[in-house]
Structure formats: C-alpha cells, structure tokens
C-alpha cells in the first residue's frame, strides 16, 4: 500500500505513478462493489424484519389473511409466525440429507478409488451435469416420480427427493476432492497392517477426511435450504405444522413466496427472509470454521 511514496518510486514519470494509483483504486472499488450486495441485503433484512421476530414467530403457524389484515389496519404486529415453514424446512432438509449424504459419500469414494477409469469418468461427468440441472426441472421430476406414483399427492417426501437430487452431486464432488487430499501413504499404512479394505475406508479414510466431508454437507444443506421452485411442485405448502412425510408440507422459502402474493402478509416477508438468511449464514460460517480447523 505504501510503496508508491517510498524512495523506490523517486524519479518515475508522474503518469506512471498516476496509473498505479488509478489501478489500485479501481481494484478497491470493485472489491467494495462485490461485497456491498450482501451487506445491503443483511442490513435491509434486519431493519425491516427484526420487528416481527419474537418467540411467537418461531412457535406459531401462519395467520390467515383476515387476521393479518385486521392487525395491519390497526397498526399492530401481525400475529402468528412461521412454525409450519420452519418444521417443513427441517423435515425436508433432514430427509434429503439422509438420502443424499450416504449415496453421495459412497459415490465419491467410488470415483476416488477409480481415478482415470472410463466408468468413473462417466459417473463424474453425469454428476456434474446433474449439478447444472435447473432446480425447477428437478421439482418436475420429483413430481412425476413421487407425487404421482408414490404419495399420490403433494408431500414432504417429494420435496425431499427433489432436494436430495440437488445435494447429491455436491456431496459426490466434495467427498472425492477431500479423499484426494489425503496422502496415499496413509491408506497404504493401514493396508500394510493387514487391514481389510472396507475397514480402511470406514476407519481411516472417512475419519481423516471428516472435516472435509462435513464442510461439503454443510455447504450442500445451505444451498438447498433456500430452494423454492422445486418445492412448489412437490411439497406445495401447508398452514399447519406437519411431520407426516406423505402430506403436503410448508417450508420457509415457500412461505416467503406466499407472503409476497398476499398484500396483507407482506410484512412477514422480511422477517422470514431474515430467518432463512440467518440459517444459511450459520451453515456457511460453520463450514468455513470446520475447514479452517483441519489438522
């Protein structure tokens, strides 16, 4: 930062010093530009949403539109909360994780163990393509498979299936990349002790790569927790707290969409978004913290 003013720059033409300054300010300006959206978003969410956040907000279900209208008209806080959305999000994300994490880790191990082989390359490419499939399309697929044929109606299971397909390629990649960073000598050390292959994977590779796999899980969760489009076609939404995976279920992002479409509920958009943003932020920071604490 200081070196433009030191003796090293004495005798340089003014234009070069000016160009140097201009370039530095440009870099700073664009960096600020990059981080400003997130700061503005968080600022706006806190300012507009914090007023609604209360104990009721996380324990009560959504009010009906008439209740909300009366409250808004008399200038009171909108009653009720988004407990149905929170419960639905927890239910569907947990179920999606239960489906995607084991399959993703096992596939990741397969890819790691078969580097450079055609079959593995094929799987890896397909997985990459899957990552690029628009989430609404995944919702459509889950609708066809689960809503129409398994639960015979909109359901949390269908929502979880869509979210699980989204998480899968992320889990595959993060597991493979994590395993690639573990020195081969560690695997060989275990094998040289006469340890069977499956025990090497379970007791040496996975524990050693635990923080990497955990980081992958948290990032995948924080990625799908805010998904709205696939849930519209699968989970549909509900005004009740629902723990039955075969029934329609709400989710925080679904509620935000519903509030947006109801003029009386607009006040709840900000607080719901604040909560969702907070969750995503926590998962992200947690994954960064785990990643930085790697041994």
């Amino acid at each position, binding site marked *: 930062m200081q070196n433009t003013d030191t003796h090293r720059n004495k005798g340089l033409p003014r234009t070069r010093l000016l160009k140097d300054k201009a370039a530095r300010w440009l870099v700073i300006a664009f960096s600020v530009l990059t981080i400003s959206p997130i700061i503005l978003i968080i600022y706006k969410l806190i300012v507009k949403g914090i007023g609604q956040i209360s104990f009721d907000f996380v324990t009560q279900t959504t009010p009906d539109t008439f209740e909300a209208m009366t409250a808004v008209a008399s200038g009171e806080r909108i009653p009720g909360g988004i407990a149905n959305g929170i419960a639905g999000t927890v239910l569907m994300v947990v179920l999606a994780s239960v489906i995607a994490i084991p399959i993703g880790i096992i596939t990741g191990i397969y890819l790691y163990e078969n580097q450079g082989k055609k079959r593995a390359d094929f799987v890896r490419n397909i997985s990459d393509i899957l990552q690029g499939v628009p989430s609404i399309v995944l919702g459509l697929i889950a609708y066809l498979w689960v809503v129409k044929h398994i639960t015979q109606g909109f359901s949390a299971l269908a929502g979880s299936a869509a979210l699980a397909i989204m998480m899968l390629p992320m889990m595959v990649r993060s597991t493979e990349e994590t395993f690639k960073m573990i020195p081969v000598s560690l695997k060989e*050390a275990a*094998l*040289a*002790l006469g340890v069977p292959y499956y025990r090497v994977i379970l*007791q040496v590779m996975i524990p050693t790569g635990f923080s990497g796999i955990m980081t992958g899980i948290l990032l995948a969760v924080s990625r799908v927790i805010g998904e709205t489009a696939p849930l519209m076609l699968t989970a549909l939404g509900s005004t009740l707290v629902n723990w039955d995976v075969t029934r329609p279920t709400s989710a925080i992002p679904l509620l935000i969409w519903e509030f947006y479409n109801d003029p009386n509920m607009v006040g709840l958009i900000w607080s719901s978004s604040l909560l969702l943003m907070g969750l995503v932020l926590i998962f992200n920071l947690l994954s960064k913290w785990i990643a930085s604490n790697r041994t």
Partner: protein
Amino acid sequence: MNENILQITDPVLSLHDLTVAYDTNKAVKNVSVGFRKNSVTAIMGPSGCGKSTLLRAINRMHELYENITTTGQIILNGTDITQMPTIQVRRRMGMVFQRPNPFPTMSIYDNVIAGYKLNGIRLKKGEKDDIVEKSLTDVTLWDEVKDSLFKRGTFLSGGQQQRLCIARALAFSPEIILLDEPTSALDPIATSKIEDLLVHLKENYTIILVTHNMAQAARISDYSLFMYLGDLVEYDKTKKMFTNPRDRRTEEYLTGKFG
C-alpha cells in the same frame, strides 16, 4: 545361478524369480534372493533401479494397483505367501514408509495398537497397555511420550513420528520388518537414532531396508543387495561388498561414479 549372488542357507524369506512390471515395463527382473534371519539387509541402488518396487512386492502392496503385475514366488518361513490372502500376508510383515505417516485422527497410544484396532481385534486394557509400552520402549520413544500418550501422533517431531510408525509395525510382532528409505525425510540426529534402533531391533526381528544412502547401508546392514535397472547385480555380506565388490557396476556405484 549368478555367482555374484550370495546363497543364504535356511533363509527366513526368499524370493524366486520375482518380476514386477508396470504395464509392460519391467521394474524388477527375475530376482531370486534369500534373507537371513535376525539380520539387517540393505537394498541399494540408484533412483529408479527398482529397490522400492522390490520391497513393496514382498508384502504384495502392488496388488492395490491394477497396472502392476507381479510374478514369481515369495517364501516366508516355508510357505508361499503369494497364494495367501493379502490381509494375512501383511499381518506377518511390518512396513515403514519413506515419510512418517501416523494416523492423524488417532492418539499416540492408538497409533501403536492401530493394527489391532483397525482389524477389529479386541484386547483387554492390560494387554493393550503392555503392547504400547513394549513397542514404544523398543523404539526408544517410551520415555519421551509416556506422559502424552493420548495426544495426537501428529504433534510429535518427524523423527519421533517415524519411530512411532516403527512401533506401530512392531506391535503386531511381525516376522519381517520392511523399511522403505525410512530416514530420507529426517535430519541427521533423528536418522542416527533410527539407525541405532534398527541395529538393536535385529536381535528379535529380520529387517529389510531400502536406502539410497550408501553410508547408511555400510553403517548398519549385515548384507547388501545392489540393484541396477531392475536387475539384482550383486548380493553379499556388506563388509565384503564395500571392500571388494565383484561386479563392475557395483564398484562404480560404490565409488560414486554414478547414482
């Protein structure tokens, strides 16, 4: 039979016509050799001569990689181990690698008994304690770590980590210990400790050591094996080979003309 190759009577381990190929490229060619019990045998030669490849063939490490093929016989105490399951073979031999590689998720204590732990062999607390203390004492690490047995193994210095890895190999009471350039990543003081240790360990174990450090082979080995481009060129008592090599290539290598 090649007259430059010493014949060992009643060897603990012998290789017969052992050939190892990476795809079609032969890295070890028709090596037949016997190893004397309770001695240190050094395998030396210039980089790429196949010495590590030969060592790794003994505990059948190459079978992890599909592009490597091994042919020939390996006889350990009278049984051909090429026909046994690799898991059994590897439990009868300890291996120590070039870089210290303690398991980073395990404590020093667990690293020593890793062979039992990872194989799911249950031991009583007392048995475990005995094995840990004996193995660590054998590698002269006990006094240095006895108060921090439950700290991670990766907190130790490089030399200590390598001795921990030797202890891990000893814990299973192997018939043979294979060491692949165990001191190449260590400083001279740590190296000399490991060398002293190997000399002391041969009372109870048979040691096969790969090294590209000729001085090391001269200091600690009883027998030396010189390899060049995949061929076993010469095998003899170390003293004899270093004072009176029979093959011209051995002589040139030992006198520093190449390597």
